């Protein structure tokens, strides 16, 4: 780990909070330059804390952090964006929480990932602007790509053959699409329709805004969601906790 100055600045998104003792919290921040890090916010649970509102999870803040013996300590915090509209929407909050959990689970501490940070901020900005689940799909696919888990979607990942325009096997274990002949060696997967493959290809070159603007039909979006969930589950070795919440919230909406 590179030596950090005794007091350093960071701009980041607060990923999560856990309480410590009577009035303190340990916050996990994801910043571009410091990467993910944890620090203590002292007295932040008291009503008169000056930093409290600035260190809520799902807030983008500028912080000043002092190195401590064990954990670093926040000394100042100022909100850059509180994502107010996002917080006022249950669906957007659920999507955002899912994105935060992905970042938390896929990253290690103190590894600078400026591109991933920019991606996260873009996703949150788009959710704040009123966009829905498509933001998360683009975020997931780009996160996988940035961290080296990009699925191969140009041809068969096993033999390199071009793929005809038909339903294809997406195999997380093989690392991408697999042609008919190689299916037996792919180690399982999910058959995905042509539009899903096209969306995955489009996500590689499209910005988040372009991807969201495409507005895929609900059944395609649903299938893409399941396909990307397979990839995430494979690389994380589990489902993120927040996925259940996202699904529960959207199920509630369909009922009424």
């Amino acid at each position: 780990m590179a030596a950090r100055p005794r007091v350093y600045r960071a701009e980041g998104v607060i990923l999560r909070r856990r309480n410590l003792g009577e009035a303190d919290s340990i916050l996990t921040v994801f910043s571009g330059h410091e990467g993910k890090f944890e620090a203590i916010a002292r007295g932040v649970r008291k009503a008169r804390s000056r930093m409290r509102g600035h260190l809520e999870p799902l807030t983008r803040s500028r912080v000043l952090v002092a190195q401590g013996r064990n954990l670093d300590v926040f000394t100042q915090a100022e909100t850059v964006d509180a994502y107010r509209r996002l917080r006022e929407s249950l669906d957007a909050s659920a999507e955002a929480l899912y994105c935060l959990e992905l970042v938390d689970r896929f990253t290690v501490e103190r590894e600078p990932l400026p591109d991933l940070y920019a991606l996260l901020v873009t996703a949150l900005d788009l959710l704040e602007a009123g966009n829905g689940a498509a933001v998360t799909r683009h975020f997931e696919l780009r996160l996988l790509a940035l961290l080296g888990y990009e699925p191969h979607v140009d041809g068969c990942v096993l033999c390199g053959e071009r793929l005809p325009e038909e339903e294809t096997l997406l195999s997380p274990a093989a690392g991408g699409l697999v042609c008919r002949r190689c299916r037996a060696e792919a180690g399982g997967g999910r058959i995905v329709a042509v539009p899903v493959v096209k969306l995955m290809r489009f996500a590689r070159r499209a910005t988040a805004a372009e991807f969201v603007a495409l507005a895929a039909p609900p059944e395609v979006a649903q299938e893409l969601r399941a396909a990307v969930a397979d990839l995430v589950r494979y690389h994380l070795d589990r489902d993120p906790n927040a996925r259940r919440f996202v699904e529960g919230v959207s199920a509630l909406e369909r009922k009424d």
Partner: protein
Amino acid sequence: MPEAGAPEPIARLIQEFSKLPGIGPKSAQRLAYHVLRAPEDDARALARALTDVKEHVVLCDTCFNITVRNPCTLCDDEQRDRSLVCVVEQPLDVLVVERTGGFRGLYHVLHGSLNPIDGVGPEQLRIQELLRRVEGGGVVEVIMATNPSLEGEATSMYVQRLLQPLGIRVTRLARGLPSGADIEYMDDLTLSRALEGRQEL
């Protein structure tokens, strides 16, 4: 960890005290030796209070507040307005709202707030119980008094969506400046909501 050399009963007491929140090994030691020096009656009273709390305190079947009788005194009070239900996260929150003296309705304690990332979902809270209670009829307004945090807000919005089809009024507490605060250090979210909720002087 118990001190080396402390006799076994004391070591055990230290061990038990150190399980309490906010009590480190040193405090646990101090408490244990205090109990040792205290009059026998005091020690017995403490022991009895500890066992009583586990034996006699239950959750009210209606509001899920902690109580010694079921239904609890609040739910049983004929003077209270049954059409108003104030939803809080913790039993302690009931006491705080009661202390204001400004609320004459009933309560519902969820026992937590939604925290999707840590895996706390609706099924871990008393949310279905609230739905059934409201479906039972007589409730006109549900007041969400969850914490103004990400988790608390998510909980409120979730409950609101769940209750929406029933056509009852779901409100939430106003957000604004806490007394004694400094505007200079106020976060944007609170300040902008306080600005919206401003009132004629």
